[in-house]
């Protein structure tokens, strides 16, 4: 689904003003433009997709061209969590806690089949069948591992999604903000609760409000 162009300034007025050198924008565009062109990913890799993520940050594909090259080690300074690799049940609480620690306009790309749905290790007893059971995911990136260009394409899709966001309707400015996702505990045979009901309904993907 393409993201609707929601900026209140109609495009042809904007373009011919720009021809005369006057730069017209709304607060919403500036807010989106700032966030989309400096998405700082968290230095967080789980498995084989992490090596492909590092390859994307390296010389040949260079994610820094998109302004997303500063991999911040501490979750406090990151805005994008790329879940690159298999999320096991022993690691799931840490992943959710890290997502909670990130400051608010935050996004999540699930890179690779394992983090989307458990992938090739789906029927393993220690493998979580997809991280979107506990945290909201913005962009899903299939592949095992997806090519570095596919990750760049995923980042471009995320940037399009950020462009389409409107300040009033974004999730983190709604009243009754429930953005603190409960961290699952370890049970005798798996995680308790098996999924977070208000984030995940089995079989039906969560449509995050972009309009």
């Amino acid at each position, binding site marked *: 689904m393409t993201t609707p162009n929601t900026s209140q300034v109609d495009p042809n007025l904007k373009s011919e003003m720009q021809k005369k050198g006057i730069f017209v924008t709304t607060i919403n565009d500036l807010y989106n433009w700032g966030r989309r062109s400096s998405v700082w990913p968290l230095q967080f890799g789980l498995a084989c997709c992490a090596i492909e993520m590092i390859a994307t940050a390296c010389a040949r594909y260079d994610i820094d061209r998109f302004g997303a090259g500063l991999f911040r080690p501490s979750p406090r300074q990151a805005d994008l969590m790329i879940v690159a690799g298999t999320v096991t*049940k*022993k690691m799931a609480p840490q992943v959710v806690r890290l997502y909670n620690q990130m400051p608010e306009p935050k996004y999540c790309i699930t890179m690779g089949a394992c983090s989307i749905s458990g992938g090739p290790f789906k*029927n*393993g*007893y*220690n493998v979580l*069948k997809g991280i979107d059971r506990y945290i909201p995911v913005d962009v899903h990136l299939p592949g095992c591992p997806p090519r570095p260009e596919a990750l760049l394409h995923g980042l471009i899709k995320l940037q399009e999604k950020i462009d389409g966001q409107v300040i009033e309707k974004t999730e983190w400015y709604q009243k009754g903000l429930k953005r603190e996702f409960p961290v699952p505990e*370890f*049970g*005798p*045979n*798996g995680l308790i609760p*098996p*999924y977070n009901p208000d984030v995940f309904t089995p079989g039906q993907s969560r449509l995050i409000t972009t309009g």
Partner: protein
Amino acid sequence: MKSLEELKQNLESKMPGVTSVLEEGCLVISKNDWLEVAKFLKSSPLYSFDYLSSVTGVDYPDRLEAVYHLYSIEKKIGPLTVKVRTDRQKGEIPSVTPVWRSAEFQEREAFDLLGIHFTGHPDLRRILMWEGFAFHPLRKDYVAEND
């Protein structure tokens, strides 16, 4: 490797009480004198198996089995496979970590995934699953949670 039979005679001559069986290329030792055999294998000048390459737990329908692969670095002797058997319910096998340090993590993994209790292990805890996990998942009768 000279030959398995010769090693077996050598073993019996050195330690009369040991009952060892040869089974398609492996030495099967009973579990209560496995520690002495281990010490002998490591210290004997003839063989000096100083390199324990791998410890594996295997779950058979009637028994649990720990399979050890031993090499000698000085004498460049090939793999000696030693099997030690125990029953499935209360699986007890003497740990060889005091003899070979490399068994420490592998025995913990065999305990974690198959439930073989290695007596005398310095720190026998689960290594791959979390502490509260109540089953031994690599056993054939384990049923995973379907969510």
